[in-house]
């Protein structure tokens, strides 16, 4: 089924909130497509160590590595290092060494690029764009960072380019008060109030930070635009990975609507770790078979798993009803945690049907 979703697609973006098995699903999709002859790269951020080991990724590294697995196609994987990607981007955009060094050694840059949330999201999109431009793979699968709001990452390029956008930069770095005059008295007053709220030192440091970016801001802005074009392109497919829990339904419906509003190509929903249970057992038969005590325990255990299965069923029916014709794939709760190639292969039969 996934194969149909990804027909003629070059990029598959797996989104969803944390803890739903997004990294695992991304890896299983990538492995499955490689097993069907494609050259695939999966980009992931900080997966659990055993999955990384299974994929043959030793540590953080910004290079794709070939995963040692016997498939007709090729499976490559990389773990994103947000800070290093950011540094590489600066090196790429900087017109000369002096500008590059000024930014990389700037105190504010060092604090913000490494420590603070938001840069990971942007860098994931950035790397995706870069690999897509290079065109070395049939398919790229992106495991998006675990944000609580599954769509935060879509805003990242715009937010970052606005941050270093020339308009706010000019305001802060224009010689004298000329820049402020151009933008009108309201801004000038706001600027002086801001000095009171933040202190003049911080504003001067910020001004220097923006100045260090120099002519690069336009490059960043264009780049953000191209990332957004890639997201909206017909060769891109968004896949929502979700759990069959009640709170996931609202999230799924919201995600679907937002993507449609933004004109982004939504392929379908993967409901992961769905509880499945068979029919109804006969209490007396279990007692006869196993003895009264053990029979009762088995009956109770079965009844509980059936109740959980009924809950998942009802939740998924509700989601299906609200998403109407959106395709949905269900992956049952597998016995063990999936954390190796064998586990990924077990998911294959459900994902690819």
């Amino acid at each position: 089924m996934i194969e149909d979703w990804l027909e003629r697609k070059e990029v598959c973006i797996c989104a969803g909130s944390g803890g739903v098995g997004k990294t695992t699903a991304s890896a299983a999709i990538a492995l499955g497509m490689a097993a069907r002859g494609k050259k695939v790269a999966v980009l992931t951020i900080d997966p659990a160590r055993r999955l990384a080991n299974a994929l043959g990724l030793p540590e953080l590294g910004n290079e794709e590595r070939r995963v040692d697995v016997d498939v007709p196609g090729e499976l490559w994987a990389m773990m994103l290092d947000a800070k290093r990607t950011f540094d590489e981007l600066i090196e790429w955009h900087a017109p000369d060494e002096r500008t590059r060094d000024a930014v990389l050694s700037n105190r504010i840059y060092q604090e913000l690029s490494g420590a603070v949330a938001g840069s990971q999201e942007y860098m994931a999109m950035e790397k995706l764009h870069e690999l897509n431009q290079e065109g070395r793979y049939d398919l790229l699968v992106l495991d998006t960072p675990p944000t609580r709001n599954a769509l935060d990452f879509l805003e990242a390029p715009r937010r970052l380019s606005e941050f270093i956008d020339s308009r706010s930069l000019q305001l802060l770095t224009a010689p004298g008060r000329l820049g402020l005059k151009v933008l009108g008295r309201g801004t000038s007053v706001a600027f002086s109030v801001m000095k009171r709220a933040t202190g003049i030192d911080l504003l001067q440091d910020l001004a220097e930070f923006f100045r260090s970016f120099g002519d690069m801001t336009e490059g960043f802005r264009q780049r953000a635009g191209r990332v957004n074009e890639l997201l909206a392109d017909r060769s891109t497919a968004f896949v929502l990975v979700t759990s069959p829990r009640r709170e996931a339904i609202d999230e799924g419906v919201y995600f679907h609507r937002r993507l449609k509003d933004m004109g982004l190509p939504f392929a379908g929903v993967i409901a992961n770790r769905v509880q499945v249970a068979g029919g109804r057992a006969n209490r007396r038969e279990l007692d006869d078979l196993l003895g009264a005590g053990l029979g009762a325990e088995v009956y109770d255990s079965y009844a509980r798993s059936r109740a959980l299965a009924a809950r998942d069923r009802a939740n998924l029916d509700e989601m299906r009803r609200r998403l109407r014709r959106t395709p949905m794939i269900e992956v049952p709760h597998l016995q063990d945690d999936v954390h190796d190639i064998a586990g990924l292969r077990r998911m294959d039969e459900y994902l690819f049907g």
Partner: protein
Amino acid sequence: MDKRLVVVAGKGGVGKTTVAAALGLLAARRGRRTVLCEVAAQERLAGLFGVSDVGHGEVELAPGLFSVSVQPEQAMREWLRHQLRSGALAGLLGGSRLFGYLTAAAPGVSELVTMGKVWDLAQLERRTGGSVFDLAIVDAPATGHGLALMSAPRTYANIARVGPIARQASLIDAFLRDRSATGVAAVALPEEMPVNETVDLERRLDEELGMEVDQVVVNAVLPDRFGADEARRLRADGHRGSDAAQAAVRAALAEHDRARGQREQLERLHAAVSAPVATLPYLFEPEPGRAELEQLADRLEEIL
């Protein structure tokens, strides 16, 4: 439970909100006026407690237990009002384009003001003049973003160096690292990846922030239903019944195997973390509510 602020952290999907709520119920039972802080537009507590919409203000979930949904924009306005000591100036700045660009886009600003609001809720003298709580419990975002939230004050203290932002950020950072004031509860599941992430969280809190995990809470631990002898009997006799009976036995054995796998992970966790480890039972209730939260609070009461 004797701190002023407790941060509930852990991997996504492990049940942080549930554990935060149970901790809140326990604190309130012990007579501490407690506020649960939801961040990043989660707003799940009201649903859990069956209370109508949480909204922006303080909502009473249970006697002595309140919730606040922390909105960065609103927290920013409150901060400006306090900083400028003038609602009019704060409005002017908050409404300006220049300021809007900088704050909406600068990485970490929303984390900083969110943490500022949480800090304020934990103070005996509220800066914003709101009601005073004995304890604030924050339901933090998943590990990476949770760490970003806790490190934002330090990052901005370093960026600003001097001036009002540096002062404020350093104050919050010091409060977070003061072990008598702030505690961290790390929530985990007895599974491979959540255990790894919990171990990692403890290490990173220590290395990056100089903070410690005070208590690990392992959520959704399956009951130890069948002993080894019983499991053997199930495997021996299970295939003799009807199809339905066989399916039931298979399901029971699957639960048994899962419970055994959980125990292995629990042992691994015990060995790998320095904080004490508490366990909470798996809730078989399809949609847990107030009654189940009270059960979890009962269990926590025995431990904490």
